[in-house]
C-alpha cells in the first residue's frame, strides 16, 4: 500500500491541521450564525431592536391578552415593574404603557433592558414603535422614572396564540461601558418619555 515517507504524511497532517483550525473557527462562527438563524426564523423570542411603523388596520374580531413581566438580573438594587400586569388588545391596535423604575442604590447607574417574548414565535409579530429597550437607560441614585413602551400586535399573528407575554430583564451595564460614555449619558439625559 502507500508508504510512510514524511512527504506523504505531511500532506495528510496539513489537511487535518487545517480542518482543526477551521472547526475552531466554526465554533466561533456559530455565534453570528445563531443570531442570523434566530432572526430569520423568529425563534428565541427576540423582538426587533428597531422601531416598527404604525398599523392602519385594527382587527376588532380578535382579542389577545398581553402580559408584562419585569425583573432585574442578579442583585441589581432597582425596583422595576409595569404599570399594569396585563391588557387586552386587538391586533393592529396601538397601545402605550409605562414601566416604573427606581434606582435604589447609592450610585448613578446605567442599565439595559433586554426583551423576550413568549411564545417565541410570537416575537416576530410584536411590533414596537417606541421602546426604552432601544436605548441604554441612565438613572441617578434614588431617582424614579417612567419608561415608555408603544406597541401593537401584528394582524398576521397566527390564530392559535391567545396570550402573549413580554418580559423585560434589566441588566446593570455601568461597569461595562466606557467612562466617557457613562458621563455623556447623564449629561445628555436620553430619558425621554414618549
Amino acid at each position, binding site marked *: 500500500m502507500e508508504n510512510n515517507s514524511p512527504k506523504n504524511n505531511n500532506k495528510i497532517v496539513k489537511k487535518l491541521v487545517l480542518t482543526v483550525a477551521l472547526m*475552531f473557527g466554526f*465554533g*466561533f462562527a456559530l*455565534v453570528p450564525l445563531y443570531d442570523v438563524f434566530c432572526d430569520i426564523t423568529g425563534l*428565541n423570542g427576540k423582538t426587533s431592536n428597531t422601531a416598527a411603523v404604525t398599523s392602519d388596520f385594527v382587527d376588532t374580531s380578535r382579542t389577545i391578552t398581553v402580559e408584562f413581566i419585569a425583573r432585574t438580573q442578579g442583585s441589581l438594587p432597582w425596583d422595576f415593574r409595569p404599570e399594569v400586569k396585563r391588557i387586552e388588545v386587538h391586533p393592529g391596535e396601538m397601545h402605550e404603557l409605562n414601566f416604573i423604575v427606581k434606582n435604589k442604590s447609592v450610585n448613578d447607574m446605567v442599565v439595559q433592558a433586554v426583551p423576550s417574548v413568549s411564545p417565541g414565535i410570537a416575537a416576530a409579530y410584536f411590533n414596537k414603535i417606541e421602546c426604552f429597550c432601544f436605548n441604554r437607560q441612565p438613572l441617578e441614585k434614588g431617582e424614579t422614572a417612567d419608561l415608555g413602551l408603544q406597541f401593537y400586535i401584528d394582524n398576521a399573528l397566527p390564530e392559535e396564540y391567545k396570550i402573549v407575554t413580554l418580559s423585560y430583564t434589566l*441588566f446593570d*451595564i455601568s461597569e461595562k461601558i466606557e467612562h466617557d460614555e457613562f458621563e455623556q449619558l447623564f449629561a445628555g439625559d436620553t430619558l425621554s418619555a414618549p
Partner: protein
Amino acid sequence: MSTTENNAVDSNHHADDHHHGAPKGIKRWFLTTNHKDIGSMYLIFSLVMFFIGGAMAMVIRAELFQPGLQIVEPDFFNQMTTVHGLIMVFGAVMPAFVGLANWMVPMMIGAPDMALPRMNNWSFWILPFAFLILLSSLFMEGGGPNFGWTFYAPLSTTFSNDSTAFFVFSVHIMGISSIMGAINVIVTIVNLRAPGMTYMKMPLFVWTWLITAFLLIAVMPVLAGAVTMVLTDKYFATSFFDAAGGGDPVMFQHIFWFFGHPEVYIMILPAFGIVSQIVPTFSRKKLFGYSSMVYATASIALLSFVVWAHHMFTTGMPLAGELFFMYCTMLISVPTGVKVFNWVATMWRGALTFEVPMMFSIAFIVLFTIGGFSGLMLAITPVDFQYHDTYFVVAHFHYVLVTGAIFSIMAGAYYWLPKWTGHMFDIGLAKAHFWLSLISVNVLFFPMHFVGLAGMPRRIPDYATQFADFNAIISIGGFAFGLSQILFVVVVYKCIKGGDKVSDQVWEGAEGLEWEVASPAPYHTFSTPPEIK
C-alpha cells in the same frame, strides 16, 4: 512499499534505535517514541484516573447513602460531580481507547509503529499536566469547578469561582492531546497499512478508530472554542453568553452539545470495534455482516452531528425543532441495532466458549442495549420533559458508559493482555472480577431508573426521604463496584509479573495480524510488512 528500508518509521530514528530492545531507566518512558510504550503509558494513566474519578464517585455515593447532608458540603459535592465527570470522560475512557489504539492499530494493520511517533510522545505527556492542573484547582481557595462537567453558562461564567481559568486551560490541553492522537491514528491508518490491506480488509477496531479520529478532529476544536468563550466571558468582559451584552446563555448549550453529542460516540465507537474483534474469536466464526458494520459505524458518526439539541428539549425549542431532533435521534437506533443484531448473529450457531473477554463482551451487548433503550425513551420529546435532569438520565448514560465503554475496555484489556505480557492472567481472579462487577454494577445503576422516574433530580446532595431505601441500595452497589475494580489491578499486576506462557495465537479462534507476532509482542513488530492474503 518498494523495499523494507522504506518502512522504518523515520530515517534518523532508525539509525540509533531500530532493532534494539527498549532503552533502560526513566528516560525510556519520557523519551519513548515506541507505540507499545506509549500505549502502555496511556492505559496505566487511564487506570489511575479511573480510580481517582472512582474515588470521587464514592464520595458522591457516601453522601447520598442517606437523605440529609452528612459528609460533605453541597459546594464540595458539586465539585465532586463535576470533576468525576471530567476525569471519567477525558481522563479514563478516552485515554484508555487511545492507549488500545496505540498498542493495537499498528499491529493490526502490519505497521512498524505509529506514523508520527514524536507527536505520539507529546500527545501522551501533556495529558498528566492537564489533569494535575484540574485536580490542583480542587485545593485552591474557593475550590475547583462546581458547575457540572457540562459547564453551562452562566454557572461557569457569572457564578463560577476563581479557579475557572485552571479548568479552561486543562480542557484546552486535554483537547490538544486528543487532536494530536487523532491525527496520528488517521495518518497511520491511511499511510501505513501493509501491502494488500485494503480498507475493507481492516479489522473493525481499526475502522471504528478511524471514524472516531475524524469525529475528534471535527468536534474537539469546537469544545476548545466553547471553553475559550467561557474564559473571555468570565475574565475579559465579552458577552458571548451574557444577555446584558447581547449574548445568549442558550447558545452555550448549542455550542457545547454540538461538541458533546459526537463526543458520546467518540466514547462508544471504539467499544463497538473491540467487541467486534472479541465476539468472532470466541464464536469461532467470521464476524457477521462486516461491511454493514462499517457502514453502520459511519452512519452513526454522521448522524451524531444532527442530534445535539435532544439534550435541550426543555429549553423552549419550537415544535418543529423538537420533532426534527427527536426523529434524527431515533434514527440512530437503526445503525446501532444493525450492530447489535450482527453480534448476536455472529454468536448464532457458533462454537461458543466463555473466556473472560467474551463474558465482558456479552455483558456489554446486553447492558449497552439496555442503555440504548433508555436513550430511546429519553429521545421521545414529550416524556423527556419528565426525565430531564433526573436520575433516569444518570442511569442511562452510566449504562452506556460504564457497562458500555468501560466493560469493552476491560474486555479488550483481558483479550490482549496475554499478547502484551506473554502470560495468561489469573483466570479465577479475572472471573471473580467479572461476576462481582456485573452484579454490583447493576445493583448500582438499575435502581437509578426507578428513582429517576419517581422524580429524584440529579446533581443534588440531598433528596426526599421516599428515595432513601433505593439510594442506600445504589450506594452499596457503588461501593461494591468500586472495590471489585481493585481485583482488576491485581490481575493485571500478576499478569505482568508472571503466569503461564501463552502461544502466539493465545486464543484458539483468534485471527488477525496481531496474533501472528510473538507473545509477548516484541518491542518492534512488522519492521518488514507482512503479506496479506
